[in-house]
């Protein structure tokens, strides 16, 4: 298992390098010009100097190399400096956002908590709902509960978040006035009252996201339970007189969770990647929203770094999912 994990880790390095190269070259084709906003009165030679200051004077391959150095060498050092108070990166060039002229990583670090709070909570809520629903609807297959569950999951699959989002806003914040329609990221939780406000503003985005994730997970759980319920070991467990609760909750659920856990692991990058649409609808100041604004503002270093981080997370959690699968299920052997 260890050798498998190492091999996969080593293999993921060229994959990630290639992905970053593809994204970089894609961005090179971008028609936008970061100097487009500079007034026409600025003389061309000054413009040229500004261009070079942004690192645009060099050929693309040199730019790519410098980006690599900044992301893989300078940024970790900055992190060490920040963590241990050392001083290794004095004056070193970091990845600079064209919008704000401040380091990209600093902005990302600022935005991550909002995304983690909202999307992460939604994920946890979805898991907590989906697994019992999946278990029960598989156990009572074709019952009313199962039919209703299937219908709701189908709806969760089919209704896009850009429809459920505004719908919830109209019902709950306009008509009923229960929850605010905009997520206030500056809100500080320091006592019970402010915690309640935080809860109120989180409910709607979490509902929208959780509906989607629950739909997927509960279907996986149901399918996996159905596979396991007809297995011989279940009959054996019943035959030796175990109570139905133990048979289902201990024997079957634990075995059925194996594929579901890997599906959950595969979904983790989406938590960090942020739900672009949901964040946009509820004005959550998170990573997804950062990506959208950077794209519209033609902020290529920001877009490049964010997309690359997403790619790293996806590759990493694919690996985690495969390893988890091997660890949880002794029948799987990667040799």
């Amino acid at each position, binding site marked *: 298992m260890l050798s498998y994990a190492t091999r996969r880790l080593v293999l993921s390095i060229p994959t990630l390098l290639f992905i970053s190269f593809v994204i970089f070259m894609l961005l090179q084709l971008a028609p936008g010009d970061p100097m487009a906003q500079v007034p026409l009165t600025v003389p061309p030679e000054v413009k040229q100097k500004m261009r070079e200051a942004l690192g645009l004077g060099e050929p693309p391959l040199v730019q790519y190399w410098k980006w690599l150095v900044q992301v893989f060498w300078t940024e970790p050092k900055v992190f060490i400096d920040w963590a241990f108070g050392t001083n290794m990166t004095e004056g070193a060039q970091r990845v600079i956002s064209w919008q704000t002229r401040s380091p990209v990583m600093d902005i990302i670090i600022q935005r991550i908590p909002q995304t983690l709070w909202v999307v992460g909570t939604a994920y946890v809520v979805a898991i907590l709902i989906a697994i019992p629903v999946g278990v029960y609807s598989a156990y009572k297959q074709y019952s009313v509960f199962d039919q209703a569950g299937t219908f709701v999951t189908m709806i969760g699959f089919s209704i896009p978040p850009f*429809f459920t989002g*505004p719908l919830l806003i109209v019902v709950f914040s306009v008509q009923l006035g229960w929850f605010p329609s905009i997520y206030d990221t500056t809100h500080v939780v320091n006592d019970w009252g402010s915690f309640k406000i935080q809860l109120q503003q989180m409910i709607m985005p979490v509902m929208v996201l959780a509906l989607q994730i629950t739909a997927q997970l509960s279907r996986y759980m149901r399918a996996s339970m159905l596979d396991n319920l007809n297995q011989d070991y279940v009959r054996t467990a019943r035959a030796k007189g175990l109570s139905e609760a133990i048979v289902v909750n201990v024997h079957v659920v634990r075995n059925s969770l194996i594929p579901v856990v890997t599906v959950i692991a595969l979904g983790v990058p989406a938590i960090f990647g942020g739900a672009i649409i949901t964040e*946009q609808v509820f004005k959550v100041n998170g990573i997804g929203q950062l990506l959208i604004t950077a794209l519209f503002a033609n902020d290529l270093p920001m877009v490049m770094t964010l997309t690359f981080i997403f790619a790293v997370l996806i590759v990493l959690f694919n690996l985690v999912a495969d390893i988890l699968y091997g660890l949880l299920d002794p029948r799987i052997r990667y040799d």
Partner: protein
Amino acid sequence: MTDNTTPADEPLQAIEALADKEPSKPPRSRAKDVWDQFRKHKGATFGLGFLIFITLAVMIGPMLYDVDPQKPDIRNKNFRPIYVALWDADAKTGWLKPLGSDQLGRDQLAQMLSGGRASMAVGWAAMILSLFIGTAVGVAAGYFKRIDGLLMRTTDLFLALPILPLLLLAVTLFRQPLTASFGLEGGMFILIVTMIAVTSWMPTARIVRGDILAIKEREFVLAARSIGTTRFKIIRRHLLPNVLSPIMVSAALGLATAIITESALSFLGVGFPSDFPTWGKMLADAVVRMEEFPERVLLPGIAISLTVLSVNYLGDGLRDALDPRIRGR
């Protein structure tokens, strides 16, 4: 000896076990089996019906209701749909604009129809293109061992790409060059269809490759090869028909994702230009005035959701109907 008195006029009866069994019912074709199983799935039947209905509506509808969806009519702006008159007699309604009109007086029914046309066209085109790429890659990887590794690594690579960010990226980046050469709407159509297809073919490729790998070792393929069938004929006549069912299931799911993705792009403002209605675009434009005119969000939203719901149910039913293990039961 007593039982030997069989009357001569009674026809000779064979022993029961040796009797030729008449086929109890006429032989059934596979298509009929599939259809019968499919019909049992109520959701799938509803899905198929609704999909046909909505496709016909957006194809034929604009011919029957030939109001220009783009024509502003400022005098008759902000009409509510006619059904609002049922509970609110003072609402500004009229048979002139059956589903109301927007802030420029553009007819909502005409917009819904032509918006649906755009959404469905993008959905179908992207789904077909994505299926084509996926099947081609899957068949090539499964059948030709030499390129299997390369193609599957490429598939893994595409699966590792962050899809929605990349879609947004590509659409924002290539909008200008493509619209310059193909016109505003044509360029956008090509761009969105291609991008959706390029980012969604991977599951199909994986499934098709797996099935091809299993089928190509079967005897009938060996038989075909031994009588000198060329490789491409084997693929076309023997392999492709056998992987048709997973392809059809992923076609249904692909159509649903393509419609949702197109609407999402329109919603985020990187889709079609604003004077070219699609369901997602109409929804996005109407969100700001949703309190006064909820129907402008509800109608396109419900249209998208129902279409996707019916396609998903269709895929579910197809999967059950095409799976011989389930079909027998």
